[in-house]
């Protein structure tokens, strides 16, 4: 439920702004010059804001499409991300957004036309080379689709660009818009998973694991390529049992021939984000995990981490061919 909408003066009359305002007639509206007047200000508390985030409608002026960090990818040499939205409907305790932002408000950049123009230019720059775009970097790609209309606005760009691929990264079951459309080959709907018990403890407000799996099955039936993201892997003392159950549940039901890719990565956060997490939720169970600091990140101690990754890799590669499996860089 959105009770308050901040609107940048510049996008006050933007058709997307008007459509969203129409959707929330009850919400209080407050005008601002720039979203940064509200978003990420000192003294704000992410934990409290998360209880009732406001929506901020803004314009993105630059940096619409950016190269991903080097190790990020699922098979292409050229990888980009774009963030039409900042922040997420869900509240996963391991999420880097709570470390990166001071605010939990949803910022929606309504000038999709500029994102789309930049995506098209980037695709054209790479001519016939494979180029991948990731949309769920600073948000969940689908969770707020009824509000953002993201799928219907962005997917047509890829329908006509066979050398480009878009990954929609999600934990959501908001797949209605996808199911209404004809599936396209170069769109991967990538679902992230942790085992059900871990998800219950750490993934607040997120649809249950079996609901997500149900969405995957529906998407596969409709011809959509799906991906599986076991990232972050989360440690618990019956880790093997929990992940075994998760993998069995998923691989037993999925049509593996329609699986686009599986990726794997262990829990880690940049040190400054981890410290912020400690300040926000000092008594959260995640913080009592075994921990080690390495190259500016806090994650699991190396041996434990490699054991976990290796264990999962064994099971995954039993079901999935090597060319569809993308482990994190330290396993390569």
């Amino acid at each position, binding site marked *: 439920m959105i*009770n*308050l909408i*901040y609107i940048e003066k510049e996008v006050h009359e933007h058709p997307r702004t008007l459509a969203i305002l129409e959707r929330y007639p009850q919400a*209080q509206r*407050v*005008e*601002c*010059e720039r979203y940064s*007047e*509200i978003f990420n*200000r*000192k*003294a*704000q*508390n992410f*934990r*409290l*804001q998360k*209880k*009732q985030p*406001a929506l901020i409608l803004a314009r993105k002026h630059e940096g619409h499409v950016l190269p991903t960090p080097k190790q990020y990818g699922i098979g292409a040499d050229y990888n980009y991300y774009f963030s039409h939205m900042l922040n997420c409907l869900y509240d996963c*305790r391991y999420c880097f957004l709570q470390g990166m932002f001071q605010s939990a408000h949803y910022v929606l950049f309504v000038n999709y036309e500029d994102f789309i123009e930049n995506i098209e230019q980037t695709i054209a720059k790479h001519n016939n080379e494979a180029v991948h775009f990731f949309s769920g970097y600073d948000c969940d790609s689908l969770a707020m689709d009824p509000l953002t209309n993201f799928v219907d606005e962005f997917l047509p760009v890829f329908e006509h660009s066979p050398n480009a691929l878009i990954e929609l990264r999600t934990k959501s079951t908001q797949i209605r818009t996808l199911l209404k459309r004809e599936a396209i080959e170069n769109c991967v709907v990538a679902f992230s998973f942790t*085992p059900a*018990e*871990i998800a*219950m*403890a*750490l993934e607040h407000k997120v649809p249950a694991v079996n609901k997500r799996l149900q969405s995957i099955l529906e998407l596969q039936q409709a011809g959509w390529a799906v991906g599986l993201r076991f990232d972050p892997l*989360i*440690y*618990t*003392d*019956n880790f093997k049992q*929990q992940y075994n159950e998760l993998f069995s549940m998923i691989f037993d039901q999925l049509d593996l021939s329609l699986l686009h890719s599986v990726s794997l990565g262990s829990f880690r956060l940049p040190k400054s984000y981890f410290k912020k997490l*400690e*300040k*926000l*939720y*000092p*008594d*959260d*169970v*995640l*913080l*009592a*995990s*075994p921990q080690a600091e390495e190259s500016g990140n806090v994650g699991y101690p190396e041996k434990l981490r490699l054991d976990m990754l290796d264990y999962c890799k064994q099971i995954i590669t039993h079901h999935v061919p090597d060319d569809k499996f993308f482990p994190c860089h330290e396993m390569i």
Partner: protein
Amino acid sequence: MFPLYLTKDQAMSLTVTGVGKQNAAAAVSYHHAVIETHPGDIWINIGVAGHQSAELGSMYLANKIIDAETGACWYPQFACHFPCETQTIKTLSVASDSYTDMLFDMESAGFYQIASRLGTAELIHCIKIISDNAEQTMHSVSAKQVSELIENQIDILKQFLALLQPLSSELDAVYSPPTYFNTILTKWHFTKTEQHQLERLLRQWHIRNTGIDPTSLINSKHNAKAILSILEQELMSSPFSIGNTSSS
């Protein structure tokens, strides 16, 4: 400096700022210095405001505060749904009866600017009760009327505080040291860095060993290093389960 009142249980305090943003800003600093406020405390500026057409006696919460003199803006943050309407407030340096569709007052900007340096944005609010409008201008408002206008809204003010209180308590709990932390510090000397380590280890201890007192483990230790070391060892060898442990 400023009249300051405390409830018997000291849970609530009130400072009378007087008129104007400078007074409001100084009163907030004074209040902070005297009360020694915490980041989890609730700060409310209660006062009256003018508006073109709003009904006399009606109550509004500021969603944006503009300092008319400098143009600076602040946006109070709402972490729950409040029982009154929100409005933009323009804080004037000189009283005016050229009413607009914004609220006019003379204190909010001074109050908010300083309070937001001392507290948490989601717990700092300005509540204004309409004392004058285009039909009944500021010239006819007496001090007695102002008291009455505020008194008439006490119930909603209470509801408002009741909504903020759990947020404040949540932050207080977050900022409180873990159980046994202070007891341990009274018995052994810890440097600042060691205190941070102790705090982290004790929190992990409580998550992993709910309800178990760690002091028996450390009573025989002679210094901070030995205590940190035994806590760390114990934690490393104790089971860690996410699925069966409730998270906060």
